[in-house]
């Protein structure tokens, strides 16, 4: 009987993949939330101020033009070489956040720009302060215009988060690679892993379609 370094794919491997999926979801929730908050703030500044638009342009351009994988490896290597004891999850979240925020900022800016100035003026004419107008008129109208673009961004973030496996964070992709080295069943493992990515993204996309329909209820025929 020859000795095999591999074992049959079993429930332990399956659990391992699920844990990876859980970390992928965690990354999406944390980085997605931070990127959205940061993106709306930066998008607002870029919408409202010419100076802010010019000052933030280089950062946005760099983040949107350099591949995420390059950013991840670059930053973790630089910190590593500089002798910092870096937390892999923290680094992954930070880079994903900045990367997605650069896109979110442009989505948000487009949303703010899409709101008719005359509608905003009408709100001010009723005695609303600039802040009240922003909260009750500008934000809701901008949000429903760019909601589909924002959902696409979040789904892209789930898939892009696979790249943080390159710096050693064991999310779904890394968990799959590990499982393959132990079972030598790449087809089965990656089929499962693909299924899990789908199981994360598809409900989000269905939920978003419902939300979108509800936000545009007034436009329905």
């Amino acid at each position: 009987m020859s000795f095999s370094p591999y074992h049959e794919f079993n429930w332990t491997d399956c659990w391992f993949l699920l844990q990876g999926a859980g970390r992928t979801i965690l990354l999406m929730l944390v980085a997605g939330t931070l990127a959205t908050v940061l993106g709306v703030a930066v998008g607002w500044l870029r919408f409202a101020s010419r100076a802010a638009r010019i000052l933030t342009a280089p950062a946005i351009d760099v983040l949107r033009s350099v591949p995420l994988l390059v950013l991840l490896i670059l930053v973790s290597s630089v910190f590593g070489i500089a002798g910092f004891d870096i937390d892999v999850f923290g680094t992954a979240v930070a880079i994903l956040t900045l990367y997605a925020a650069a896109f979110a900022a442009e989505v948000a800016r487009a949303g703010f720009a899409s709101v008719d100035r005359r509608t905003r003026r009408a709100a001010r004419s009723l005695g609303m302060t600039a802040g009240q107008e922003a909260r009750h008129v500008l934000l809701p109208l901008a949000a429903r215009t760019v909601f589909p673009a924002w959902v696409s961004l979040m789904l892209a973030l789930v898939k892009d988060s696979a790249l943080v496996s390159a710096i050693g964070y064991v999310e779904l992709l890394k968990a799959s690679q590990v499982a393959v080295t132990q079972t030598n069943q790449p087809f089965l493992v990656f089929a499962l892993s693909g299924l899990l990515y789908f199981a994360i993204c598809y409900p989000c996309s269905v939920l978003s379609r419902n939300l979108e329909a509800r936000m545009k209820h007034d436009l329905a025929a």
Partner: protein
Amino acid sequence: MISLRDVSKRYGLLRVLDGVSLDVERGEVVCLIGPSGSGKSTLLQCVNGLEAIDGGSIAVDGEAVHGRGTNINRLRQKLGIVFQQYNTFPHLTALENVALALRVVKRMPRRDAEAAAARQLAYVGLDGKADQYPSRLSGGQQQRVAIARALAMQPHYMLFDEVTSALDPELVGEVLQSLRKLRADGMAMLIVTHEMAFAREIGDRVAFFQEGKLVEVGPASQVLDAPRDGRTAKFLGRAAQ
């Protein structure tokens, strides 16, 4: 009283308002007529501080609209304005359109705000449309929502900026009807309009405006039937054709 003293405003080299002086008393209706692009709309937007002025002064009940210490948001509650393009809030129902500023600006509880909003919608004849979104309403209905929205703040003065110009002819009447009702209730109004017959009917005074200048102001019948200034006569002659 709304009191304009020697108000001027420039867009670059263009003098949109050139030394305009005009008073609107409480309870009085003043109609502004004149060619398109003569600065009438700009004048209205200056009165509630949506536009800045370059010279002169505008006071509402003695408070300078463009004064440094003026709380413009509080002052604007005295000045309702209705625009040519309605500018209703598309994401809110007719009722919510009217109730929003009551809740946000006057800090009324939702229930009270909606009750007040319902009364205003009834006032402009839209009781049955409270739950409709603007996209489901005709132009005339949207414009009446906009009127109800402004009235809900219980302003002392109403400013109307060509409120029927964007409407299909058959919808003009229902909007003018709301203005007649307001006049009967004693609301002070400054109305920019191209409807000469309406200006004659509703205006205590009519002011003719051309190239940023107030050419002639007087009782409606005098300005419209026996204008003293040649430019007014010429404009009325063209408008009548």
